[in-house]
């Protein structure tokens, strides 16, 4: 009887591990995940075009990741994208005239938000909005502009 209790326990553990793996595949690997919240404060940015920016894309300053995109929405009043980013609490001294741009890492890489610090003495707080933003570069527009400028030469 002792033997069969052990067997039952091990089978129980086996099934639990199997279900846990399936759960991990569903939650962590595939796209229905509820994102783990890191400690931080939220700022808002408006862009006229976010390109391929995605939730959880990095937010960097001087190339160092200091936060992540937490939410992407569309502001139907001004027809612009509204991006919420979560910045880690220890980086609490971002000047309010900091400018934000969407860059691409590598030629075909992922897009991220790069912050360029300004010179102001007042810092951005929870819920504040960036004033200076620059949209993503869309490759087709770039090629279009290049063709137009070539044609006008």
């Amino acid at each position: 009887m002792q033997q069969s209790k052990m067997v039952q326990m091990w089978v129980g553990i086996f099934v639990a591990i199997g279900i846990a793996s399936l759960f991990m595949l569903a939650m962590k690997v595939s796209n229905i995940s509820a994102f783990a919240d890191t400690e931080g404060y939220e700022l808002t940015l408006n862009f006229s075009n976010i390109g391929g920016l995605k939730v959880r894309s990095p937010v960097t300053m001087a190339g160092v990741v200091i936060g992540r995109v937490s939410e992407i929405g569309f502001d139907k009043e001004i027809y612009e994208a509204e991006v919420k980013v979560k910045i880690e609490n220890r980086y609490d001294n971002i000047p309010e005239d900091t400018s934000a741009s969407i860059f691409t890492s590598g030629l075909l890489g992922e897009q991220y938000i790069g912050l360029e610090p300004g010179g102001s003495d007042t810092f951005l707080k929870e819920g504040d909005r960036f004033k200076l933003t620059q949209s993503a570069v869309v490759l087709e527009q770039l090629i279009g502009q290049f063709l137009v400028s070539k044609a006008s030469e």
Partner: protein
Amino acid sequence: MISYFERLGESALNIFEKLGRGHLFLLHVLSGVPGVLWRFSLVIQQLYAVGVLSLLIIGVAGFFVGMVLGLQGYNTLIDFGAEESLGVVVALTLVRELGPVVSALLFAGRAGSALTAEIGLMKATEQLSAMEMMAVDPLHRVIAPRLLAGIIAVPFLAALFSAIGVLGGYFVGVGLVGVDEGTFWSQMQDNVDLYDDVLNGVIKSVVFGIVVTWIAVFEGYDTVPTSEGVSRATTRTVVHGSLAVLGLDFVLTALMFGE
């Protein structure tokens, strides 16, 4: 010369005969599955034998396969400046293909061979005949729980393989070669679909579980009841089981992921 063709024809007929026997056998076993559900302790015993005892090999293999994927994927992707896609590469490869296929292959080697040898020896020592004498159907009492346990165990093992493989890829990709952690997961989550990828992988592994366990128990039941016969049956289980998995994988992939 004539005798050569005779033997050729005979072996061809034998193949078809065996194929037919195998399917009748499967039907007979399946008819016993509902009865087994009422005596689930039999299945639990077998789940221990085929599932729990396979955990170690599946876990270790999954981790190393994931690490290799992480390293090879990174070395290839870095040439194109696309190392952010490492998470996608690792996860899709594992969830769609390597998880179900490799765990089914390992299962055929680890558990399938053991099933065949066990049932073959039961036949060789006439335990199965003894059961029939006592009006106990060995297909229902011995084979059905093993088949059911195999079908339950393989999807779990495949899921474990994929999950540990992803962790292995994460360990190499983020830990050793330095892909950004958030990008690794976010790209993965953006490009791996719960239904198209994860669920199809699970369906695949269920099919592989049925086929591999079926081949294993049938080879055991159909063995020539000598020690040489058992050894041949065990070999056939691993060879046929692996080939069936690889062949079926192509068919299933074409059905699931072809446009």
